[in-house]
């Protein structure tokens, strides 16, 4: 259902106001934020809600001991991947770091398969061998899911290189965080991408904290949209809590890359509500800060308000969407709880082709 709704949203994409940007304005709706039509708002609401509910369930299941190891939740950042995905076309690729559940769901990957991978079961997308940080789907053009901070930036540039080599017109969306933005290979990649005019959009999800380190304690240049300046790569800051602003910027960036002009940088100003991972008590920020973001800038609440007040949907209609999303998530959790662990013989498979 999520996929169907998203496609409907894409169909209406042409109506979006392209001229707007929240450049440099930080958070909050800029006066010239583009408007969504009803289908787009419905699609975005549905997709963001699926990610939120899925991640909440993941958190619960982690607490129950069903998910092990590292588990990084995307709650609060949903508008980034959903808005960007609305701006793509079939064939465009996505690659990201370890906070990847939302990206997989937005790419249309099966929630059951994602959740079963989190629980390490044979029905998981990687047969239980990858876990939270390592899932892939060639069919959905999702290239992971990478656990080494910044590694996906070179890899995504390589996927864009392959697009360029094949002249297939596809663009690779390469996501990374404000923390990864300080890795050396990011700049090695920027250099090659611009040198060779590769079709890649670098989406920097600035959620203000690299694990426990606030941006201003780790970065000499905290305006990440400027990180490509010395390579001549254009960039802009985007209100990453407003799915409409993300979508509009995504369209500009993807169009730039697809037209052969080379890479584009989008700094998505966003916020994660939870800790870096499940084991992070998030003592490095105040409860007030988190509460304020949730109350004033929640990406899902913004769309919900538009649906109720602008598009005059009833609470009942929204509840119907909510319950369908919950159904998907509950089914996924159910499957991931009862699916058997991988067969021991799987230990020695998939090492070489």
């Amino acid at each position, binding site marked *: 259902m999520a996929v169907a709704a998203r496609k409907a949203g894409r169909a209406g994409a042409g109506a979006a106001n392209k001229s707007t940007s929240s450049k440099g304005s930080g958070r909050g709706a800029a006066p010239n934020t583009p408007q969504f039509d009803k289908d787009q708002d419905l699609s975005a609401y549905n997709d963001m809600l699926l990610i939120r509910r899925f991640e909440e369930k993941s958190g619960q299941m982690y607490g129950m001991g069903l998910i092990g190891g590292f588990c990084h939740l995307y709650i609060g950042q949903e508008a980034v991947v959903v808005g960007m995905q609305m701006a793509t076309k079939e064939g465009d690729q996505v*690659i990201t770091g370890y906070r990847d559940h939302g990206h997989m769901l937005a790419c249309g990957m099966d929630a059951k398969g994602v959740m079963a991978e989190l629980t390490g079961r044979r029905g998981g997308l*990687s047969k239980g*061998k990858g876990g939270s940080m390592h899932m*892939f789907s060639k069919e959905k053009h999702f290239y992971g899911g990478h656990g080494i901070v910044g590694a996906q930036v*070179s890899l995504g540039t*390589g996927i864009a290189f392959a697009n360029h080599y094949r002249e297939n017109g596809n663009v690779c969306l390469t996501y990374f965080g404000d923390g990864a933005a300080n890795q050396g290979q990011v700049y090695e990649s920027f250099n090659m991408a611009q040198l060779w005019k590769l079709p890649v959009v670098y989406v920097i999800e600035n959620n203000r904290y690299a694990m426990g380190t606030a941006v201003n304690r780790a970065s000499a240049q905290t305006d990440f949209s400027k990180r490509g300046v010395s390579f001549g790569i254009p960039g802009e800051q985007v209100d990453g809590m407003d799915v409409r602003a993300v979508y509009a910027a995504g369209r500009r960036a993807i169009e730039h890359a697809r037209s052969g002009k080379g890479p584009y940088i989008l700094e998505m100003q966003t916020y994660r509500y939870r800790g870096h991972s499940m084991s992070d008590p998030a003592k490095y920020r105040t409860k007030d800060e988190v509460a304020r973001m949730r109350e004033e800038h929640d990406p899902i609440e913004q769309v919900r308000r538009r649906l109720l007040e602008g598009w005059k949907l009833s609470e009942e209609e929204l509840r119907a969407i909510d319950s369908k999303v919950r159904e998907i998530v509950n089914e996924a959790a159910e499957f991931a709880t009862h699916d058997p662990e991988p067969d021991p013989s799987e230990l020695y498979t998939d090492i*070489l*082709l």
Partner: protein
Amino acid sequence: MATDILMPALSPTMEQGKLAKWLKKEGDKVKPGDVLAEIETDKATMEVEAIDEGVLAKILVSDGTDNVAVNTPIAILADEGEDVSAAASRAPAQGGGEPPPAPGPSAPQQAPVPDMQAEGMADRPAPSERPQQTDLSTPAAPSVITSRTSYNAMAEIPEGTEMVNMTVREALRDAMAEEMRKDESVFVMGEEVAEYQGAYKVTQGLLQEFSARRVIDTPITEHGFAGVGVGAAFTGLRPIVEFMTFNFAMQAIDQIINSAAKTLYMSGGQLGCPIVFRGPNGAAARVAAQHSQDYSAWYSQIPGLKVVAPYTASDAKGLLKSAIRDPNPVIFLENEILYGQSFPVPKLDDFTIPIGKARIHREGKDVTIVSFSIGMTYALKAAQELEKEGIDAEVIDLRTIRPLDTETIVASVMKTGRCVSVEEGWPQSGVGAEIAMRIMENAFDYLDAPVARVTGKDVPMPYASNLEKLALPSVAEVVQAAKAVCYR
């Protein structure tokens, strides 16, 4: 006073070159910086400049002479007005012949030295000992292949196949060119691979044939371009990523291991990575610790990688073609000193050698010597020495380090009861350590002596010529180890 002008070395591993052209003639006055002559090797053309002022009294090696060994006097420089008749009466040197003993630390030691360590110093393939054939029109076996060489791996080559002599460098280039002609998804990237024709000239001519789209010069950015290669391979392209040397691949090792080697497993078999990382590995000559490391053992530890380290040109070609076609990431370890050596290569349209198969390079019954890559030069010479002492050594060329061909090693050890491993890499957790363990696991009851290993010494590679030779394995050490396991 008259001084000799010597044939210069253009690179640390150059052994000989062609004196292409004299730009000064006898009797010309020269001053420092004047270009005297042009020298060509298979890698490059360079100019010889005068260092001192004087008169070019006598040209000893004429224009167009091939195979002039480094340090051969090529001309005599005299002070202006000096009587040079005595010096100038010296006979011109013969091109292509043995170079006269020349001063300097790189001179080959001709006389046997009784001291074992000193003898070891002479065992490093020195210019005059290395194969001299570079002319492809006159096939000849490299000097290291002796009459006792069984060369039973010729079973991989159909009987009656014509063999042509070519260098390892040419064999590697041909392998890439052939695969690129066959498969549009194969491309080469790396530093200086295109316009410069390869830092070691391995990619010579590829840019001209395949264009800049498929032969791609990268910035000096190993971590980045390794990642770009891996990303491209995830989509199904088949990159050949050249590292100028594997020493620089340490900057990229995260992408090689965490991304290239592990993703197939982490994706439950969905996302393969058909990529070849290739380049010279191990010690070259006089380039010190940071540029002289052998990574065979390092990469061989990683599940998800294949690791290939050929010795002969034929294996280099057949294995590189297999590596390019392999759906898995392959670490292809070449050796700079072997690049210029010539070996017979079968003249076949499509010659491949399977990855994972060792070759018995020389059959014997008394002791098994296992080696790979340049280690084979010590192993084969040691076998010749041992033969003189009545010890019949079997020499196995591993060719592939991972997957290791345990079967061939074990079968040989079951026959000989004794084993010595030879490698230039360090001893701890080295390839030799692994071989010894596999023999313990599979053929312990057949052993008549503990397995011995000859390795590079447990030190960073020193720069000084004498220390460098001491740090590397030597033929004498292999001979001594083989005798020790034979209780001789």
